[in-house]
């Protein structure tokens, strides 16, 4: 058999280069936004001088380089590794923010911008990860410079996720699985109370309870709906018009 002990030549490219010089070259490539070159140098730095002076800074810039070159997975992995290795590092919030941004990008869709498809009707996947990353950032580093931007993205993502829940609830109302619809509504109210979709969640619960012929529970939820969203489109004053369930309207 061909012996596979071939000597890897290309590694030696950085053999003689000292740690400082390698780091300068990497920064240079970053400035020139030549990310692939920057990535190879930063990776070499990471394996060659794992405990050198520039180790932590190199790992941070590696996360940024991956993100800018569109490699969301690698960027997330590098960020998680950095947070695990240096939890109390002054720039840990930056790493967490970059990780959130990578998931955000991974969750987006070209078709979504064309409004051709409504991604809240599909598997949100990476958008869920982005939501948890940004929430963690806001919780752990409220005063971080990235917190305000993260907060805005949280609001957008929260609506996306709760609208997904409501699509499912709507299906179960049409299908006749009323208990399932009520529980989906409850899930939005418990997990995403601030989302504006939570008003629709209340309406779903009212209609679900009507389907289950539990008018007493329906009335309890109706009162909360009226307080929170008097002008909800299924409300005529204090009477609730069911959309799918064949039951009389309910007035609080």
């Amino acid at each position: 058999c061909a012996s596979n002990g071939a000597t890897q030549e290309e590694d030696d490219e950085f053999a003689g280069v000292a740690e400082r010089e390698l780091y300068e070259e990497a920064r240079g490539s970053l400035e020139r936004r030549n990310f692939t070159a920057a990535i190879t140098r930063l990776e070499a730095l990471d394996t060659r001088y794992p405990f050198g002076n520039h180790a932590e800074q190199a790992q941070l810039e590696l996360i940024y380089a991956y993100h800018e070159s569109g490699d969301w997975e690698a960027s997330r992995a590098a960020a998680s590794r950095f947070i695990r290795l240096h939890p109390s590092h002054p720039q840990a919030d930056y790493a967490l923010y970059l990780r959130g941004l990578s998931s955000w990008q991974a969750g987006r869709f070209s078709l979504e911008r064309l409004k051709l498809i409504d991604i809240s009707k599909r598997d949100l996947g990476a958008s869920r990860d982005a939501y948890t990353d940004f929430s963690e950032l806001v919780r752990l580093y409220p005063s971080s410079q990235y917190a305000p931007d993260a907060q805005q993205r949280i609001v957008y993502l929260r609506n996306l996720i709760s609208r997904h829940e409501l699509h499912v609830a709507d299906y179960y109302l049409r299908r006749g699985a009323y208990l399932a619809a009520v529980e989906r509504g409850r899930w939005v109210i418990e997990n995403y109370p601030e989302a504006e979709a939570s008003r629709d969640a209340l309406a779903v619960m009212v209609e679900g309870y009507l389907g289950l012929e539990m008018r007493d529970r329906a009335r309890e939820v109706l009162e909360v709906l009226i307080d929170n969203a008097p002008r909800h489109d299924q409300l005529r004053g204090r009477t609730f018009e069911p959309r799918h369930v064949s039951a009389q309207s309910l007035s609080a």
Partner: protein
Amino acid sequence: CSYFGVYKRDIPQGNLVTAGMVEQLRPGMTRDDVVYVMGRPLLEAPFDANQWDYVFRLEEAYGDVEQRRVTLTFAGNRLVDIQREGDLEQGIEMRPSDSIGPQVEGTEPFSVNPELQPE
């Protein structure tokens, strides 16, 4: 099933509650004792953690709808009130879904192609 009616399936929803279970309940029992007898309710009361609704609804594919409900009220950890609605005596006959169901329109592969020549 009616000869020309659309193929339907039963729609079960909620906890299977029987009279036998409810008889075992005694006021004063703790929540854990209740859970041991009834299992955990699928439907907690919307805004009041002290009320548990054990609801079971079965909309039969070609039959009517059967509905039963037991609402338990707790004071702190103790059971204080049991409300029952619907006929709990009758056994629940859950027909296991015996088959995978009909093929979705148009997913039959290559079975019959529209004829290219004229009829």
